């Protein structure tokens, strides 16, 4: 009789109910993140943002399948197109003997639609990479600063204050001018400049979490500083950071486009939306589709991240934790 329950490990037991079973950390993760997701998807604007983002990520991943042409290939001598030709969509009455270009052809005889699709890859990776870098460094600095306090806090925060004192884009331009124009350098510049934002947010939430009772409890149980900071405080300081990072992706994409527009970001023939805008800026009246579509692409991407970020903020708002879940404002 005594052998019956012993060989059955706890993990293989069918969960009786989510709230009651499993260890404590499982319980917390489930409740917080599941609740957040549930609240997030109850907001229509966040759902719109999420759908937009899915479309963008999809077109970035499947760009070679979706794009009808090579984005860097001039179609001179390959197809019968004219320079800066307007959109030709067969479904909308464009004669079938003319090649279809949904968003027209640019000044170098390249298919704009293909360039926009491939541009998604660049913009999304720019946004994610720069923000990830900035979040990693910023969180680390902010956490140390907030937890250690005193002189270390002072040194780190004053240095970051200096960075913050410069106008955002101006500092980015200065950094890129020193490093030399190019997409990688532009990303690096934007990442470096965003660090203080994330460091400040992290520091602020570390400061508030650090005073909570469960930290006191951990300390009483003999946890080391590192364990407390990275195992207890940081995970609990994450929610505001997630919101700021999501919104930060939008800013990063916009800033990269701005840097590319002034010629310091992506270099031709890379299909980056900002540089596409810049190169055809003089055709705003004679061939408006060349500035309209890249502009639209930038707008929708930024909108997607902003909507999602706003939704996340509402969903993670501690004041709404015990409420109905949906943001009311």
């Amino acid at each position, binding site marked *: 009789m005594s052998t019956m329950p012993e060989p059955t490990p706890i993990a293989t037991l069918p969960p009786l109910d989510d709230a009651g079973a499993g260890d404590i950390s499982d319980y917390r993760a489930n409740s917080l993140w599941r609740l957040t997701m549930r609240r997030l998807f109850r907001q229509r604007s966040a759902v719109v943002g999420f759908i937009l983002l899915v479309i963008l990520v999809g077109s970035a991943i499947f760009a070679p399948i979706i794009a009808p042409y090579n984005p*860097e*290939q*001039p179609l*001179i*001598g390959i197809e019968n197109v004219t*320079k*800066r030709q307007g959109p030709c969509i067969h479904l909308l009455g464009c004669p079938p003997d003319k090649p279809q270009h949904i968003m027209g052809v640019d*000044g*170098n*005889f390249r298919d704009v639609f293909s360039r926009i699709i491939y541009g998604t890859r660049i913009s999304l990776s720019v946004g994610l990479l720069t923000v990830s870098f900035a979040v990693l460094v910023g969180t680390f600095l902010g956490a140390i600063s907030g937890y250690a306090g005193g002189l270390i806090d002072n040194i780190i925060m004053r240095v970051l204050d200096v960075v913050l004192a410069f106008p955002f884009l101006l500092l980015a331009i200065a950094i890129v001018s020193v490093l030399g*124009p190019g997409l990688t350098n532009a990303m690096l510049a934007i990442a470096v400049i965003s660090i203080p934002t994330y460091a400040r947010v992290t520091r602020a939430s570390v400061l508030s979490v650090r005073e909570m009772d469960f930290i006191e409890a951990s300390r009483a149980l003999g946890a080391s500083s590192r364990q407390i900071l990275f195992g207890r405080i940081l995970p609990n300081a994450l929610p505001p950071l997630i919101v700021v990072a999501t919104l930060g992706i939008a800013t990063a994409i916009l800033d990269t486009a701005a840097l590319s527009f002034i*010629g310091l970001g992506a*270099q*031709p*023939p890379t299909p980056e939306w900002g540089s596409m805008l810049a*190169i055809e*800026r*003089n*055709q*705003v*009246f*004679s*061939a408006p589709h060349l500035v309209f579509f890249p502009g639209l692409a930038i707008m929708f991407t930024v909108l997607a991240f902003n909507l999602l970020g706003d939704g996340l903020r509402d969903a993670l708002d501690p004041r709404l934790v015990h409420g109905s879940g949906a943001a009311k404002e």
Partner: protein
Amino acid sequence: MKKNRILLLMGVLLVAAMIISACTATSGDIQQAVEQVAPTLQAAAQEVAPTLQAAAQEVAPTLEAAVQEVAPTVAAAATQVAGGSESSFEPMVVAAPDCDYGGLFKEIAAIDELTVQFSMCAPDPAFPSKAAFSPFAILPSEYLESTGGSGELLEHPIGTGPYMFQNWSRGEELVMVKNPNYWGDAANADTLVFRWQTESAARLLELQSGTVDGIDNPAPDDFATIANDPNLQILDRAALNVFYVGMNNKFAPFDNEKVRQAIAMGIDRQRIVDHFYPPGSEVASHFTPCVIPNGCAGEEWYEFNPEAARALLAEAGFPDGFETEIAYRDVVRGYLPDPNIVAQDIQAQLAENLNIKATINVMESGAFLEASDAGRLTGLHLLGWGADYPDMTNFLDYHFGAGASDQFGAKFPDLTKILSEAASLSTDEARAPLYEQANNLIKQYVPMVPVAHGGSGAAYLATVKNAHVSPLGNEMFASMDSGKDSFVWMQNAEPISLYCADETDGESLRACEQMTESLLAYEIGGTAVKPSLATACTANEDLTVWTCNLREGITFHDGSALDANDVVMSYVVQWDAANPLHVGNTGAFSYFSALWGGFLNAPPSEE
């Protein structure tokens, strides 16, 4: 109020009393001091006296001789002054010790107040064309001296032209006012305003809204729009220019002739002209446009042949291509109407035809020109040239002659020799065989790939009378009539400085040309040379001495009269590198060195 006045009066009296007492005290002190010092001074004087006397005796004969020497000159001058003619005019003469310095000038001399004589080291048939060119404009010698050859001179030109400088708000506009004492036909508009805008769409918008009277270089795609607008007029500028892809033979792999030839064959120039240039443009068969005498002598440029180009590249050791850079400035010029688009097409062609991966490097205009002139561009560079005067020397000598910059790296001695020989011949027929050789050598060496002679244009409001474009890019706005008090011209870029002796940029030259004048001038809207400050420049039989007679009664904008010394000074500050006024904006004086062969007293080159 009254109380205040009394107080004030008392204050003044008090101060006066203090000053008076201070003065009396001081005078007493001084008296005392003098009495103290007197004996010492006397002793010192006695001590020095013998030495002084000896020195005086020593100097006396020399002084006497000097006086005797000067006496006749002084007497002559005195009689001249008494006679009232040639008042105190001391003719200025500057001569090179010999012709070994490499330049064309041997001596520049004022003969009398209104005659200047240029003695050359070699015959110079192109002298009138060069003397009409705006970098060699005549400025008052006193003004050159007072500015030290830079500073104020760069910002505020004083010339003899139909317009006078009024104000230059950097970044905004350049304002000129009518010269009431102009010797020729007075300007139509009282005020001439130069503005600039790099975006062609914005330029066109300004013209359409009527805020400017004329714009330069509308975008190729906008030519039709302007032509169809009854309120506007578009004028085509003849394609007297060349757009080329330059290479510097000091940097690998362009030090290999085969690589350069491969690039020459591997770019489909017809495709570029067909798709990216406005009507009136043509593929460059030679570096110089065919309109220029002897421009198209010699063999035509390489046919587009990607297979042969790839084979040549493989032969040179680059079967898989290489990586390089395409540098250019994002500035619209008649020879390059759409720089970004053309650069990207060349980039795509190089990748496709030759497997050469080129990155694009857009540079600031001034920095780009400086880097290309100094020979610091390691990859390909896109640049062009607009004719300053319609002569082969203006194209070939400037780029490939002995005085050319380091833009294409090391010079080709056989080419420079032929060019200097050709430049010294007097007729186009005599020069023909030499220019045929020169063009063939250029084709063989490929210092650059000539791509196109670009048609361009300027657009004006339909109400502007006498609107014109110049194939040389020097539109004269004094002759245009907008029917208003002011005429506003919008060009592509701001002038770099207004001392055009040290500028090569057309946007600067055009601004200078409204205010300053050269000995001769080009006819309005054309290339023929006509008299200007000089009524004529005549040569001796073998074209080695050119004598120019200045027009009488011309005054500069500052009121001073034009004389032969102003001419000599204006040339000499450019010619003589050791002259303290040889400063300018960058000190390059590129046009002088390129067109007149080189500087006198040039510092030894760094190589």
